[in-house]
């Protein structure tokens, strides 16, 4: 079996707290050894040696929330283009949302997507199946059978489940199997028709608002249902300080709740909408500066557990529209890591905590064997140059869609090498990534 020795690395493993210079040995698709003193006497003779140049070697990133658009909207993104973009971003596992055409609410669809991903994808693709049939919020899906087919959780994606009685029963049913339910936190009756965060900017732009209270009430309702059913719950993408407070209270009660934030919610605020910039239109919307700071603080304290890209490709057609008619969504695979690293460079979040939110914690919530540097684990790795300065150039992103408000942003740090199951799926230098050219 093929062996590859990663020497001269800075090993970073949030699960064990390891942050030390060392080496790591991969055999076939598994990590077989690692440690600070490994290769002190030289790498094994038969292994291919990869000098990491002192860069950070961490578990490959796990992105809990992404819209891959295949099947049904392949003009926006395909599994092939999405996973290439993910690999370039240091992501080794993406979790696909069920909001495709057709919707992933049948066991056969979960199997189809897994098969497609094996054939055409370069990183691992898991699926969260629909929580309600047809995402219509009325009847729960066949969670047991969907999980047997490979679904790692249940969600209606960017549809909030409005019917509390249905959500209660679905959560209750999910406890049978200890499934994870991820909900878009929003009270749809309060957000209906809203275009951006409610407030001064919306008022000046003359756009109808999505008030923070919609998220607060949506989340508080969900947390109460969790308290009642004891279900494992994940708030799939929060944007307000109120949500952070509510989560802190729920966690203090010992509930099995977790939350994710997308980079745009800690990297931007509502002013990014400027003169109706539809590329910054997203759900939940970009919020106030106080909310943005609350996201950073939530990550620092660990109340927010996960950073997920919320990768949502939209074509030009969908975005080159009057603001109210433009589609929501921001692509996120290739900006996830550099934007997250801003929090490290800015001194806001410790490196181990930052990587934990993109590796060990998602793996634990999804019950995946990856996300850790440990003997016997799948060799899903990312080698990160933490400091190299560069600028995002959306035209050179691998995603088929280019809807990012971060075009031209100066950032620091980049994935150098992405390894999935022992296989190198991205090499920044070889591929002449624009971060390096």
């Amino acid at each position, binding site marked *: 079996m093929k062996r590859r020795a990663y020497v001269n690395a800075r090993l970073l493993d949030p699960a064990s707290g390891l942050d030390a210079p060392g080496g790591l040995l991969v055999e076939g698709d598994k990590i077989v050894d690692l440690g600070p003193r490994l290769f002190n006497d030289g790498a094994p003779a038969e292994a291919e040696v990869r000098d990491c140049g002192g860069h950070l070697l961490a578990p490959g990133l796990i992105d809990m929330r992404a819209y891959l658009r295949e099947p049904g909207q392949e003009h926006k993104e395909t599994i092939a283009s999405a996973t290439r973009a993910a690999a370039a971003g240091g992501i080794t596992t993406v979790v696909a949302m069920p909001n495709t055409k057709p919707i992933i609410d049948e066991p056969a669809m979960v199997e189809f997507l897994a098969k497609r991903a094996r054939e055409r994808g370069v990183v691992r693709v898991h699926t969260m199946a629909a929580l*309600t*049939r047809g995402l219509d919020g*009325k*009847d*729960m*899906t*066949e*969670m*047991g*059978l969907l999980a047997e087919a490979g679904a790692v959780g249940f969600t209606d994606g960017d549809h909030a489940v409005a019917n509390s009685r249905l959500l209660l*029963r679905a959560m*209750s*049913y999910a*406890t*049978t199997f200890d499934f994870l339910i991820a909900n878009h936190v929003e009270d749809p009756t309060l957000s209906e028709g809203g275009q951006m965060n409610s407030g001064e900017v919306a008022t000046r732009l003359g756009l109808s608002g999505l008030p923070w209270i919609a998220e607060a009430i949506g989340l508080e309702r969900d947390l109460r249902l969790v308290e009642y*059913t004891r279900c494992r719950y994940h708030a799939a993408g929060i944007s307000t300080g109120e949500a952070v407070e509510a989560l802190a209270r729920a966690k203090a009660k010992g509930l099995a709740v977790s939350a994710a934030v997308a980079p745009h919610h800690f990297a931007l605020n509502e002013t990014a909408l400027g003169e109706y910039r539809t590329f910054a239109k997203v759900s939940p919307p970009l919020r106030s500066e106080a909310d943005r700071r609350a996201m950073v603080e939530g990550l620092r304290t660990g109340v927010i557990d996960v950073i997920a890209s919320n990768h949502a490709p939209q074509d030009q057609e969908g975005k080159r529209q009057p603001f109210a008619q433009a589609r929501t969504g921001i692509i996120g695979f290739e900006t996830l890591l550099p934007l997250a690293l801003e929090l490290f460079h800015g001194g806001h979040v410790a490196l181990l905590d930052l990587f934990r939110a993109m590796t060990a914690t998602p793996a634990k919530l999804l019950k995946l064997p990856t996300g850790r540097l440990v003997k016997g684990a799948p060799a899903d790795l990312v080698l990160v140059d933490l400091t190299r300065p560069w600028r995002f150039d959306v035209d050179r992103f691998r995603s088929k869609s280019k809807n990012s408000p971060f075009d031209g942003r100066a950032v620091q740090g980049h994935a150098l090498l992405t390894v999935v199951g022992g296989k190198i799926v991205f090499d920044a230098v070889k591929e002449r990534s624009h971060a390096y050219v």
Partner: protein
Amino acid sequence: MNVAAAAVFPHRHLLGTEGLSAGEIVLLLDRAEGYVEQNRQVDKKQALLRGRTQINLFYENSTRTRTSFELAGKRLGADVINMSVATSSIKKGETLIDTAMTLTAMRPDVLVVRHTDSGAVELLSQKVDCAVINAGDGSHEHPTQALLDALTIRRRKGRLQGLIVAICGDILHSRVARSNIHLLSTMGATVRVVAPPTLLPPQVARLGVEVHHDMRAGLKDADIVMMLRLQLERMNGAFVPSIREYFRFYGLDYEKLASAKPDALIMHPGPMNRGVEIDPEVADDIDRSVIREQVEMGVAVRMAVLDVLSRNLPNLGPVGPK
């Protein structure tokens, strides 16, 4: 069985199994044993209830229970009248209590009542002079079903005490489950309920049962596997996602049954949904399934209930509410 039968049955009505003593249950079961033998003779008729009138008042459709009560009454010599909602003045808006007043004026001796609402039979029993037998009220109780189940088990296993009984399926809506839980617990059996949380009533453990969500764990070493019917309208995403998912995780098949004792008996109150809560092969396995025997025991148990209650009937007084 080390519990002695009670000498007399000290109740005017049979509204539920909750509150019956072990001795009273044994009395009913012992009495039913005799009727099992009688029902297997050519001449099944007795004169115990000669001159008595039994009205079967069914606010909910039923074939087997109503027929079983009708046969029981007739075999004991009573005159039996069936009233069902479709043909009664309930459709014209008469309230339950008005109906009770009307019926009591006709001087029946026994009223057998099934109603869609929990507690309706008890309410009616407070307004009439005769003996009332609950033939199923809402999701509350169905005592004769629990008695016939107990009789079936006792005849096969020789006892109730110490047995492990797993009741599986829609416990939430099941009066059969509640009556069985009370009766079997009183008789010293270990009762487990096995269902997804969506089909379990809140705090069901407070009824003295073990709660399981997994069939293999719930059936482990069980002596009796009691399957409940799942109404079709509850299966399309409301309480459980679908029929096929329910069958996969909660349908009784040989694979799941393998966790139970090798001689475990399979019971079902009927009517069965083959392929939903029970694999047809299992349901029809003559070595394991006692489902048809349950039906036979039903008539005997109902005769026993009519028997003991008729002995407590009051002397006839003036017409009217008591």
